[in-house]
């Protein structure tokens, strides 16, 4: 379980990183926190010719605020969000999500960009940032482009990036003070990837009432309008569960019921 040999580069600018990737002819691989890439290298699931460590690019670890949103540098760590070392565009929701990712040692290094690029269906950011409708800022040979996170993940562990592209930032709309959030995940063990998860964002000022079901076998499932279940009543709760079970996400009753129950728990957190 040792990686095959690779070259290592630690560029200090986005442009240099793009150039290194473009020149590597598909043999380059971006490394951020290394928390997922490290094991993949060791297991030789990834055998890049060149590793481009982007943590030397100062701007990627910082945060930029604009009129109605916040752009998080791709290398902002889970721990930085957890500790409120960066502003929280979702009124504390992001910090709460971050605090539940893995273990502190992993959070110290793991990054938002790395997690989204890795696109594990059970990862926390993929589901929760889809719920807040985050936008990906992507740098490449032809400049920067933007894509909605909901469109970014194409399949488990696959995202819409070409070989010389990488994520530079994640933009999240600033939520109104009245916004409400619900998030529930079920893990077999504290810190392990989830078996079932659901995130809910209700922001009346922005006309948002969205839920996302994660930890599926593939892309997160977006339920664009769940206002029919709110405010919650016992009947609506049952109806909500039945609706999710009816989606047959896993195609297996026990797992489908878990998804429904996770959704119900998240709904119960959304205060009227």
């Amino acid at each position, binding site marked *: *379980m040792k990686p095959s*040999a690779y070259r290592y580069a630690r560029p200090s600018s986005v442009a240099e990183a793009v150039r290194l990737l473009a020149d590597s002819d598909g043999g380059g691989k971006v490394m951020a926190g290394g928390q997922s890439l490290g094991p993949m290298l060791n297991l030789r699931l990834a055998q890049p010719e060149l590793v481009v460590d982007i943590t030397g690019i100062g701007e990627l670890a910082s945060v930029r605020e604009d009129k109605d949103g916040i752009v998080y540098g791709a290398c902002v760590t889970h721990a930085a969000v957890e500790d409120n070392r960066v502003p929280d565009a979702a009124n504390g929701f992001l910090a709460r999500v971050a605090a539940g990712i893995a273990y502190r040692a992993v959070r110290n290094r793991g990054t938002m960009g790395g997690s989204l690029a890795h696109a594990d269906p059970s990862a926390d950011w993929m589901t929760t940032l889809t719920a807040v409708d985050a936008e990906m800022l992507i740098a490449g040979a032809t400049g920067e482009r933007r894509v909605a996170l909901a469109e970014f993940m194409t399949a488990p562990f696959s995202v819409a990036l070409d070989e010389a592209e990488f994520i530079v930032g994640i933009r999240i709309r600033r939520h109104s003070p009245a916004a409400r959030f619900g998030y529930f995940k*079920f893990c077999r063990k504290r810190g392990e*990837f989830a078996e079932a998860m659901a995130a809910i964002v209700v922001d009346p000022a922005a006309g948002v009432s969205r839920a996302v079901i994660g930890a599926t076998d593939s892309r997160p499932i977006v339920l664009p309008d769940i206002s029919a279940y709110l405010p919650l009543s016992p009947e609506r709760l049952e109806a909500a569960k039945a609706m999710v079970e009816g989606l047959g996400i896993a195609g297996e009753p*026990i797992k489908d019921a878990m998804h429904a129950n996770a959704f119900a728990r998240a709904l119960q957190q959304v205060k009227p």
Partner: protein
Amino acid sequence: MAAGEQKAGKGIGVRLPRKEDERFMRGRGSYVGDIKMPGLTDVAFLRSPLAHGRIVSVTAPDELAGRFFTAADIAASVKPIRAVSGLPGFKPSSQPALADGKVRFTGELVAMCLGRTRAEAEDAVAQVVAEIEPLPPLADFAVAEQPDAICVHEEWSDNIYLETRIEKGDRSRIDGAAIEVEREIRLSRQCMVPLEGKGTIAWWDTRLDQLVVYTSTQLPHMMRTGLAECLGLEERQVHVVAPDVGGGFGFKCVLQPEELCVAWLALTRKKPFRWIEDRREHLVAAANTREHHYRIKAFADAEGRLLGIEADVAVDVGAYSVWPFSACLESAQIASILPGPYQMPFYACRTRSVATNKPPFMPYRGVARTGVCFALELMIDAIARQAGLEPADVRLKNLVLPEQMPFTNITGKLFDSGDYPESVRRAVETIDLASFRARQREGSDDGRLLGIGFATYCEQAAHGTTVYAAWGIPMVPGFEQATARVTPDGGLELRIGVHSHGQGMETSMAQVANQVLGIDTDRINVVHGDTALTPYSTGTWGSRSMVMAGGAVSRACEIIRERALAIGAHLLQTGKDEVELVGGRIQGQGGSVGFADIAQAWYKSPETLPADVAPEGLEVTAGYKPMVDSGTFSYATHAAVVAVDPDFGSVEILDYVVVEDGGTLVNPLIVDGQIIGGVAQGIGTALYEESPYSADGQPLASTFVDYIIPGPCEVPDIRIVHMETPSPFTAHGIKGVGEGGAIAPPAAIANAVNDALRPLGAEVAMTPVTPHRLLAAIAAGRNGRQPVQS
């Protein structure tokens, strides 16, 4: 002593902090992987991608010449591992160091490659091409038992290493029993996952004409024998050292083919070679254990008094019989210990050790007892439910009573001492059963179901010659020896043949010596783990070290004491009968001398000693065997309170109590640590750990992503209550306790889960109790079916 009272001094019974923690807690331990040598070559293995197949060819590009080896290179000079059992009907297996002709499990060694680094060796492995013709894989014992199944070992007629039958007592007693319960109970295959995996470094010492093998083992002397036998060396030519070892749990009791390969390289190339097991190798190809399958019936009268047990047990032993414990240690134990700590008039058991295309089954902390306790204790609760009784009361009705001790049970086990029912009563009291039942009736406010579970066991430990001779394995333990040497400055060196890898023996052995000699434990060194430095021993296993090596240390120190008294008396110019040893000093009428004075006289100024002084001096090797060598019986009752979330099938342990009696505790602090560690592993068995295999014999948990072990959040505070009934048969009344913690948790936790599930008419009977299994049980309960265990 009253509860909570601290014993003074540094002798037996003192909660002395561990001497070894200074290095371990600061990351200064010295493990195989820490050893650096010039010219060290790394070894990596190509492992079989198939569970069962015939090897057509194994080839590598020419550039790997000299760095690539297969069975063709080594089979002529390395004998296969053959662990034979003397039990009648046993079929031995031959495990080649590198697969020869056939592969019998996914992960079996097919070829090895060398590199200056492990990565380079793995690069070479990636270039090797193995053409293997697939054979039908036997991924489950039930498939392997089919009459038309292909044989794992083609020279056999079926896939059964050994079948045993035992029937004791009066069968007519179960006729018309008021209560008859039958269950299918399973323990999944799992791994042992010590912090440190296996690792081996070997080189040739030209000066001493010896193969030197540093290996992560619990039994260096046995490894010396095993390596010498397989490599065709004389034992004088093999020197085995077990440096710091980061947990063994039984895995490191076994001679591994990787050890043979590395040793062969060193022997033939006269240079240093190393292999360090990585976690994937460990999870996929090593340390497999626990997989028992029971069909079991229990019979009781209407009051819940046991009338008999009838069981049919299969152990899925995998592809090979491990050396030295063999493929049948587990099943032989099951048959003899299934009646547990209970009295019953009838008992019958059939066992089969079944060969499958999975890694060899190894003994794991608790050995057969964890499975037996799980099966039996689930049955006790099933009886209680049927009888409408408190499960704890059913235990009290059936346990062997203190006034019956020493007691010979239905399979001839001699229980040495103790008050088994008292352990149940104290567990009931400590966990507060009555309040719990009230709380359970009220129900929880978060929708979770509450349950309580108990499990009682007794644990034969430090089993000696007679027991192992009856099990017929290649290694029968006899006497244990220890060397004690007073150093010229009055300190003490102890040399023991057992190995300490987490048990704190560098401290507890020193405490035994302190008890006898009064020398401060800070001035006592315990040397272990080196065949050149320590007396021969079968090593650390079976919770035997404290009883056996502790007994030997005690004997050696008693002899030292007599000799020191003689010299001390002379120095004090008085008779030997006029002096005594108090607080580490020889006291006479006119004054006292310490060990430094005695050592000074003995080693440096012998001219001051009388002419007739015993020439053996201040260095002694003494042997020890308990008065009765059939083993000590520790026992315990574990009690668990759990909350089950019926939405997700999760189990939270809210409270966990252990009431245990390990005889005289040499160091209760260390014993607590052993119990907590064991319970943590037991929680792993109960709820998390599983090495599943696909139908074609592929391991489905090859990293910690899929193989889940409990972490700090999953292991609650464990409340320990000690009882101390000394064994009448051993030095200081010590009993073996190292394994106990890992025996009862699966049973106690599953019983608690079943107590919680009772309103739903659901029951679990398989480890680990995963969310999926639990939810499937609930669904089956809803449909009024018995759950299917899978």
